[in-house]
């Protein structure tokens, strides 16, 4: 997994609260046995009408958001099912960063395990970003090392992230390899039980 330190990209604003993982990737696409190719099913029933044609009312289909790599969403983003297919779909579609006032716990973890950076910003900051990105191309920069989100117009907001996860994301480390180096401790624990 490649590490992520500095990142710039265009914003896709999804001004909805409680976006659940059933919307991010509907269940009929969960039957694959690999991790690839989920991007085309991202937000499937919002992006496409029942006849399979693009739903022009859903902003992700808008020309100006093509190539967006930072998703800005509402409260409790990623709630519901634990399906890791949700971050797989986001990543495969091209999203590297998701910003929201709050995330569902399982989704938040699943993002980080896949090199997607989930960023919690205050409600007021998220509102500014949503507004800035509505109807226009809007580029944001994310600096994980400094823990800052900024734009060229003067928006500047710092964010919190667990130092452990920050290291993991910046270096793109494989967590299992790290944990296996604690084999002695795990064995010790198992012996004492």
């Amino acid at each position, binding site marked *: 997994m490649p590490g992520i330190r500095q990142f710039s990209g265009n914003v896709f604003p999804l*001004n*909805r*609260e*409680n976006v*659940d993982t*059933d*919307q991010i990737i*509907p*269940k*009929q696409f*969960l*039957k*694959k*046995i*690999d*991790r690839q190719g989920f991007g085309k099913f991202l937000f499937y*029933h919002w992006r496409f009408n*029942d006849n399979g044609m693009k739903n022009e009312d859903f902003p992700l289909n808008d020309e100006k958001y093509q190539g967006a790599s930072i998703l800005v969403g*509402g*409260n*409790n983003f990623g*709630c*519901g*099912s*634990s*399906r*890791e297919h949700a*971050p797989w779909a986001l990543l495969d579609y091209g999203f590297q960063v998701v910003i929201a006032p*709050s*995330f*569902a*716990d*399982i989704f938040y*973890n*699943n993002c980080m*395990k*896949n090199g997607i950076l989930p960023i919690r910003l205050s409600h007021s900051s998220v509102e500014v970003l949503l507004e800035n990105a509505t109807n226009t191309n809007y580029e944001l920069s994310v600096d994980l090392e400094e823990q800052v989100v900024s734009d060229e117009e003067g928006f500047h907001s710092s964010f919190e992230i*667990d*130092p*452990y996860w920050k290291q993991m994301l910046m270096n793109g480390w494989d*967590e*299992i390899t790290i*944990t*296996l180096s*604690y084999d002695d*401790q*795990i064995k010790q*624990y*198992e012996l004492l039980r």
Partner: protein
Amino acid sequence: MRPRNIVEKLWDDHVVYQENGKPDLLYIDLHLVHEVTSPQAFEGLRLKNRVVRKPELTFATMDHNVPTDNREVIEDQVAQTQMTKLQENCTEFGIELADIHHPDQGIVHVIGPELGLTQPGKTIVCGDSHTSTHGAFGALAFGIGTSEVEHVLATQTLWQSKPKTLQIEVDGTLGFGVTAKDLILAIIAKFGVGVGAGYVIEFTGEAIRKLSMEERMTVCNMSIEAGARAGIISPDEITFDYLKGKRHVPEGDDFQKAITKWKQLTSDEGASHDLTLKLSGSEVEPQVTWGTNPSMGISISQAVPAPHHYDKKSEQEAVQRALDYMGLEEGTRIDEVPIDYVFIGSCTNSRLSDLKAAAEVVKGKKVQSGVTALVVPGSQSVKIQAEKEGLHEIFVEAGFQWRESGCSMCLAMNNDIVPPGKRCASTSNRNFEGRQGNGARTHLVSPVMAAAAAITGKFTDVRKLMTVYQ
């Protein structure tokens, strides 16, 4: 020692390694596996030549996409591939599997407790968000993603930050005709779908203590719908009575020793929580959700709300979007809304007591014409027991379909799908857009409320049926 709550005790018991600036390395006692969220995890192991560290602490079944009608011929080849893959993976890595034809097969959160794999004091994970169900036994149980499934398979541990604890205290007693499902729906309607984010919920209070184990499972099951990865209830005599004699539970003296140990898990007198919320059990009425997330719920006597009842613009928009999707007009009384489908099943409400309660309502009556009604037992064991008690006959005579066990219409990964625009009274846990089928309109209710809706063809206060026919 400072008084600790049950979550803190369980946590301390399972820390393998602790270091400043890192999450704790937590040992996992039981790992439940199913066909949908595991293939990529096993593939990950294979690619790196890794083994499953503790196959004996791992147990697998097939539930999400299994057909519930004809099991001899699996029409869905993609689903079949996932099932075959799980079989191969379990054989290769030495994991016990209850496959589609096995007598232990069932929804993973139904069979864990049934087999006695679920026990107080254990840490339990599964690649499924409703793993919170097992917290009913005083276990710390939570859903994980596929990367974490792979991590547990390889190491039997997870790096976890200690969660905050939220106490939800329910005093009093639930009224006549009011179930554990109504209680948890009322909790979510009152406090919201995000209230538990970052927390483990400990359910306490008189009304909780009076619940049976199956009712406690219903409550803990939907903790995730309040945003909490886990819900937990301290074990007591009701827990021990349930566990006695279950296959994987210690016997004789060992059982007595286990009870002594389990009793110590109970939150200490004076233990604190990061947040406490309260609700009176006697206030809860039978619930029906009207919208597209589980907090959009009302009592059966109430009307569907209007967007202008809400303060925030984002809420008003969400309510309007939900009304549009659900095909409902603001101000409509929910007990005037007709239904097309009834689903009694899912890891929330497919246990024997759920089916018994629903059968009691259905007995001697007929499903309203035009309504398609399904009963899907949670496990083969539930199905067999229900048939011994003649419940299937009551359902079939009334016009219900009686099916094989699985997740079925809760998430419609198999052929059990609610068609677009159709309205379903469902005992499951999620009313998200498209959850039961693209364009399907889901209303979450208790098993008895689902049974009542099947009989009358619309949402109905089950207490009225119970009074009339008693």
